[in-house]
């Protein structure tokens, strides 16, 4: 059986955990250490923590908090947010983080991808690409932090990141973020065809069949936020994760 990683993607803002809707309206969902502890108990495949305020506020990673989070994780942990240099990445690896996710730094100075990959291996570097469709449905690169984008050709950005040593691409469909309304399969398919390395699809997952749709479109792994922290129509906070048997049945079912 070929299985795919299913990755809770947690967003940090002001030291708390939030969940956004289309990259806006951050809603507080709880204490990060407590949430990570619960996800650890649920034996998730991997965990991703992104500090969405760091770059915007012009600060680096909150190393103290990250060390505490890493101490709770007996599965791979990827951290992103505010990583500006090779030194930041090296500090994170020492704290017990397996992978670093880069976005603004990768857009502004792609050389940092190579520097980190040469030190820690390409498998430790995730480049995060946010893509938003315009009113005509045309996708282009989106910068949530406000970092200037050199070119809007999002597929060229993926190719460039891989050429510089990215071991994985995190593709987030901005229009689907937090909506629970399904993944953007066309976007995933294009990205997966373009990236030679594993692709993590993020944005829109609201059910197990959405996860399967993402892998059928070519994603190697699927990340989700709202699906794992909200429950019911009123978006009550409840941390969940599919049982392994349910995931196994999902991978074994015909496409």
């Amino acid at each position: 059986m070929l299985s795919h990683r299913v990755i809770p993607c947690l967003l940090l803002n002001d030291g708390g955990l939030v969940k956004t809707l289309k990259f806006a309206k951050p809603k507080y969902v709880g204490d990060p250490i407590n949430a990570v502890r619960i996800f650890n108990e649920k034996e998730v495949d991997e965990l991703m923590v992104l500090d969405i305020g760091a770059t915007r506020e012009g600060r680096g990673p909150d190393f103290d908090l990250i060390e505490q989070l890493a101490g709770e994780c007996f599965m791979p942990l990827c951290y992103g947010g505010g990583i500006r240099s090779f030194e930041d990445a090296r500090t994170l690896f020492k704290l017990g983080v397996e992978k670093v996710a880069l976005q603004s730094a990768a857009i502004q100075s792609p050389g940092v991808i190579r520097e980190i990959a040469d030190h820690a291996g390409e498998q430790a570097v995730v480049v995060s690409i946010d893509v938003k469709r315009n009113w005509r449905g045309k996708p282009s690169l989106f910068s949530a932090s406000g970092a200037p984008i050199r070119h809007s050709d999002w597929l060229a950005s993926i190719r460039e990141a891989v050429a510089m040593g990215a071991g994985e691409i995190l593709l987030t469909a901005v229009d689907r973020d937090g909506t629970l309304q399904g993944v953007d399969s066309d976007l995933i398919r294009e990205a997966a065809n373009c990236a030679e390395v594993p692709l993590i699809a993020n944005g829109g997952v609201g059910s197990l069949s959405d996860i399967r749709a993402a892998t059928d479109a070519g994603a190697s792994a699927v990340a989700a936020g709202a699906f794992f922290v909200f429950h019911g129509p009123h978006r009550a906070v409840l941390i969940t994760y599919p049982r392994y048997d349910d995931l196994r049945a999902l991978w074994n079912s015909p496409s």
Partner: protein
Amino acid sequence: MTTEMAFNAAEPDQRPDVTIVDCGIGNIRSVQRMFEAIDGRAEIITDPGAITGCRRLILPGVGAFDAGMRALAEGGWIEALNEVALVEKAPVLGICLGMQLLCRHSEEGRAEGLGWIKADVVRIDTGGDARLKIPHMGWTETYAAKPNPLIPSDGAEQRFYYVHKYRARCDRREDVLATATYGTEFVSAVHRDNIFGVQFHPEKSHRFGMALFRRFLELPC
């Protein structure tokens, strides 16, 4: 009860249960944390001189084969490791790149490996399945290839987290401890005498990794 505990704690020259080699090529903190989580005592050493008398040895590693061997050679580790593994015969566990370094050579580079396991390291063979990207990254069910002290062959599920582009190819069938499949079946753990190697990351494989570490702590030393 109190006296007995005090006696145990007071033994001055009792080395920790495991000694983790830190030559700058691995995420050693995660390995130590998992041993601590199962109440094992784990020390990290950065100097090969500190290896003498260790009870059980862990050789973690990520990155390229030649870089790993260079780190061992430049740090003066090789002689010390040979002494522990081949003369003192302490239980040794190589993890990920650490497992590959136990072998003779790797297609990935030109350096000579430690050569303790009669195996060469070759690229993953996905069997031509274009959906399978390299590296193989994720959780994969793993099967014991022979009765062994680390991975039960009782049919119970064993699942581990892998990140690798290369795999071991053993000369001798009996040195294969476990296998897994990514496109094609590959050797996911090796074993000869007191020497063990796993391609996956037990330290990142929650309860399955903890159980494996627990069994490693039970190996006589």
